[in-house]
């Protein structure tokens, strides 16, 4: 493998490490559940993309042909991550409403509570 390929893979790996550390710091430091939900999304989107790109570059350069197996992980992750996020946000909202804790303010122009039909 050439030096440039090595340097590219190393830079991508380090970038992903810093992004994941940022996500962990956000998860630990942010004050409230709904703001905390934002941080791990960084790990499951951008960091995962960068690591996948690093593995693709590494194995493609090593074997001399495109190795695209790792795209499958990104595809599955980009299907599952939004579902997890929505279910978890609804859970947080529901449990807070049930416990009587203060809810986040409603969006402008939206009713206070979702209307039930």
């Amino acid at each position, binding site marked *: 493998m050439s030096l440039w390929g090595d340097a590219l893979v*190393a830079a991508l790996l380090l970038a992903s490490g810093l992004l994941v550390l940022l*996500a*962990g710091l956000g998860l*630990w430091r942010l004050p409230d559940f709904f703001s905390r939900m934002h941080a*791990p999304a960084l*790990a499951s989107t951008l960091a995962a993309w960068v690591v996948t790109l690093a593995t693709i570059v590494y194995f493609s350069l*090593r074997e001399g042909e495109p*190795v695209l197996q790792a795209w499958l992980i990104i595809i599955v992750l980009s299907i*599952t991550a939004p579902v997890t996020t929505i279910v978890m946000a609804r*859970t947080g909202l529901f449990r807070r409403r049930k416990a009587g804790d203060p809810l986040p303010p409603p969006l402008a122009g939206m009713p206070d509570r979702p209307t039930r039909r």
Partner: protein
Amino acid sequence: MSPLLSMAVSVTLGLYVLAMVLGLMRLMRGPNAQDRVLALDFLYIVGMLMMLVLAIRFNSRMYFEGALLMVLFGFVGSVAMAKFLLRGEAIE
């Protein structure tokens, strides 16, 4: 594997471990159950990323299958736990 790449892999794994420790602290501390579910989901994702870095480290493509399984099981586990907190049952 060149020394540059092997050092980058070690540093990246160290950063992941640091992030996992932060997630674990949130898992222990987390004031509510939903915080703990969120932290567990984060730990699953970081474990999956670690698997991909290990694929580079040990030069083996078998780790991709493990990472794919971790994505799927993390998804199923997180949604089941969130549904349980939401409705009191995982499957209705």
